[in-house]
């Protein structure tokens, strides 16, 4: 197998066309604000558009609610603040008239940017009314909030709908009766399998889906007061978990729908997207646009400059001229375990010049893997017993020095063979390593 080589960096950037189309919702780039506090008002969204955001999903409209103090909690880990985040805030607390007036203003001032209105109401009559008002205000699309996992679901809305495919399909079909603009159904991750829920949106006639909404969570416990966080007086409630830490969950759910043959709807990807790399990953797994909330709450609208520039440079360096050159490109590689090549073999190599001698790889391998990295007397660089290394990646993951440990392919002479082929009697598997019999 030939080594994987990155294409050479281009001296001159060829600006790719970042125009995004998600089920008929067109935006100048794929970066949207998710329906959340950063998209709460017209003034905020105008500032976001000035910074470069291509679209915004307006904070969910419905019967305005009243919120509590405190609303947010952060998960801090090894000195990094808020790698995870949760909230117990509900939908808009501002009068509907105010929201619709501001939507109208924003669309007048930014006709080319996408304004998608997130909605959450109960009865068919209410849906009919709020859809008509959204369209009158100039919305480019609707997003049905079937995902909120706290507060609203206790009132029979949000994830109470998203967790029940029949309810999802029924309400989506109501909406499709009344909407003349594209409709995305926002899905909740608080389900055992995302696919039936995506299929329900499709059966209801939706133009696309967006996912994931937040994950049902308790962010922590105040051990001094012995109360759940974020604390509201003497109590708290479960909230919606989001931020960088949820990205892998979101990537899986996006990919699960993207690879589903019978699905085929456009996807707006959401969940832990903090920079252009995250966005590119969501696009590669089938998203047509991406939505961001938490990183904007933590660092502001100005992060979009790097997102646009980083994505453009990435695409330019690889000769990609439009988003379709990237969207879904990694989906075919998402496979069942039984179809993986069991004879593909890698071993870890340590770059002695880069090693700083922390021995985190040694302890990780000893206590957490297959006991094949050993300290060397008189040297700060450990040695890897390649005859026992199973190629698990743990040492590379724990190593604090970039590019110090690499996983190197080994040509073991075995033809590719999957577990499924082995079970069917058509493949020969290489001997196991690291078993220590």
């Amino acid at each position: 197998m030939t080594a994987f080589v990155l294409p050479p960096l281009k001296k001159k950037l060829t600006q790719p066309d970042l125009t995004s189309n998600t089920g008929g919702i067109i935006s100048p780039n794929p970066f949207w604000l998710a329906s959340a506090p950063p998209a709460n008002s017209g003034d905020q969204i105008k500032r976001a558009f000035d910074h470069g955001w291509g679209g915004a999903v307006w904070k969910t409209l419905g019967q305005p609610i009243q919120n509590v103090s405190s609303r947010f909690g952060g998960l801090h880990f090894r000195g990094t603040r808020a790698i995870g985040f949760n909230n117990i805030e509900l939908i808009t607390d501002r009068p509907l008239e105010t929201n619709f007036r501001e939507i109208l203003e924003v669309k007048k001032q930014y006709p080319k940017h996408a304004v998608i209105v997130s909605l959450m109401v109960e009865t068919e009559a209410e849906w009919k009314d709020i859809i008509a008002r959204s369209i009158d205000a100039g919305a480019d699309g609707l997003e049905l909030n079937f995902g909120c996992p706290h507060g609203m679901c206790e009132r029979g809305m949000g994830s109470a709908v998203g967790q029940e495919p029949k309810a999802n399909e029924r309400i989506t079909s109501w909406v499709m009766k009344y909407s003349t603009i594209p409709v995305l159904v926002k899905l909740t991750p608080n389900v055992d399998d995302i696919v039936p829920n995506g299929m329900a949106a499709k059966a209801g006639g939706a133009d696309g889906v967006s996912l994931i909404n937040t994950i049902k969570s308790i962010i922590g416990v105040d051990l001094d007061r012995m109360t759940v966080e974020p604390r509201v007086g003497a109590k708290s409630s479960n909230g919606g978990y989001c931020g960088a830490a949820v990205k892998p969950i979101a990537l899986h759910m996006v990919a699960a729908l993207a690879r589903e043959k019978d699905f085929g709807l456009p996807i707006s990807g959401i969940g832990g997207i903090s920079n252009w790399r995250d966005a590119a990953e969501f696009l590669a797994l089938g998203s047509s646009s991406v939505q961001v909330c938490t990183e904007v709450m933590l660092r502001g609208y100005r992060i979009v400059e790097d997102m646009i520039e980083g994505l453009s440079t990435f695409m330019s360096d690889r000769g990609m001229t439009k988003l379709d050159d990237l969207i879904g490109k990694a989906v075919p590689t998402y496979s069942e375990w039984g179809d993986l090549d069991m004879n593909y073999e890698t071993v870890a190599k340590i770059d002695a010049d880069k090693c700083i001698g922390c021995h985190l790889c040694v302890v990780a391998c000893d206590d957490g893997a297959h006991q094949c990295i050993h300290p060397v007397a008189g040297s700060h660089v450990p040695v890897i017993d390649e005859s026992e290394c199973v190629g698990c990646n743990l040492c590379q993951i724990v190593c604090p020095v970039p590019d110090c440990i690499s996983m190197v392919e080994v040509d073991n002479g075995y033809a590719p063979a999957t577990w499924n082929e082995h079970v069917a009697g058509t493949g020969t598997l290489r001997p196991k390593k690291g078993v220590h019999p």
Partner: protein
Amino acid sequence: MTNQLPKARAESVFEDYKPALTAAQATVEANRCLFCLDAPCITACPTGIDIPQFIRKIATGNVRGSAKTIFDSNILGMSCARVCPVEVLCVGDCVYNRMGQAPIQIGKLQRYATDTAFDNGYEFYEAGAPTGKKVALIGAGPASLACAHRLRRFGHEVIIFEKRPVVGGLNTTGVAPYKMKADRSVEEVDWVLSIGGIDIKNGVEIGKDISLADLERDFDAVFIGIGLGPDNHLGVAGEDLAGVEGAVAFIERMKLGPISVPGGRGVVIGGGNTALDAVRELLGVGVPDVTMIYRGTEPGMTGYEHEWKAGKVEGVKASWQTQPLEYVGEHGQVTGVRCIKLDDKKKPIANTEFVVPADTVLVAIGQAKLLSDLASLDGIRRDRSRVLIDADGFTGRPKWYAGGDLANGGKEVVNAVAEGRDAAIGIHSFLSGGVA
């Protein structure tokens, strides 16, 4: 290459005082940045680089974009990363200082991003559509280069007149070689010129080969970026002895060619930043015994504290509150500086005369002002030491703009870049029919 420098240059013996970051180091450091809003580091930067944004881009792997953020504000961002006194500018104002934490190494991160852009040959800028307007720039130092590049982006035709054979001004001839060497400065000039259409005419001296009146007649605007003149001297006996030299002249010789420094004892007169460079440079080229003679006190010196600390660590001695009286010598060669101690009011103290032995004496007490060269131009505002400009670099005489040391009295490269850039914006506004 615009200029060929001799291969054998005395400066070659110096190593970087602040070594470059590896990619791994840069990523770790970039991730420490808090991405402050209205960040104090931006305010502290004379060119106003969006520092948090360029650092975030390093953290995400968008190093090309990072370099562009830097160059958009400061086209000489590569050399400024090396030569800026970041300790008193961006780094000194990092919010981490208030937390008692090590501030972000902004200069080193800027060097990482801009060096990466240079090494990969990234191209960022194109000249604007031709406007038919012609601008002359006098002097090929940082101010003029920054002005010329921005003028080209606006589409104006640009000619730089430089009386010397080298380009880059003090960036090439004056920067301490443990910060940047002459060849890197010349490479940077080449990179600036790669926008195309900037014509540098070396060996053309204004007032001799071409007159100010010619420039005024033949060009739509003129930018003066001639910097400062030769080293000032004390005017004491013995100045003609061999071994007594202006510090700026010495530094230029060291940067542009081989030199020999006889004897083992060096003296530098002065307490500013040129003096602080000179003492470390004498040590570096092999003079083991170096003394700085300054009329003021240690806390009162005008040079940067961090530079003096570095000199002390390297072994420089100082004689504070000391006034040189004359140079003494034998057979035409200097052998020492006769001095007298000063009191707190800088008055000589009787019977305190002494001789500091020296084989080399570098005089770093400032440089001549070149204002007399401009005397024929009525309307140019000036005081005793500077041409006075407004925020657009305008001098008060229509068509005439200025920036750099000539206008600020002698500041950092980054100040010259800011003034050159802003003058280009002023000139463009003037040429586009705006208010001069």
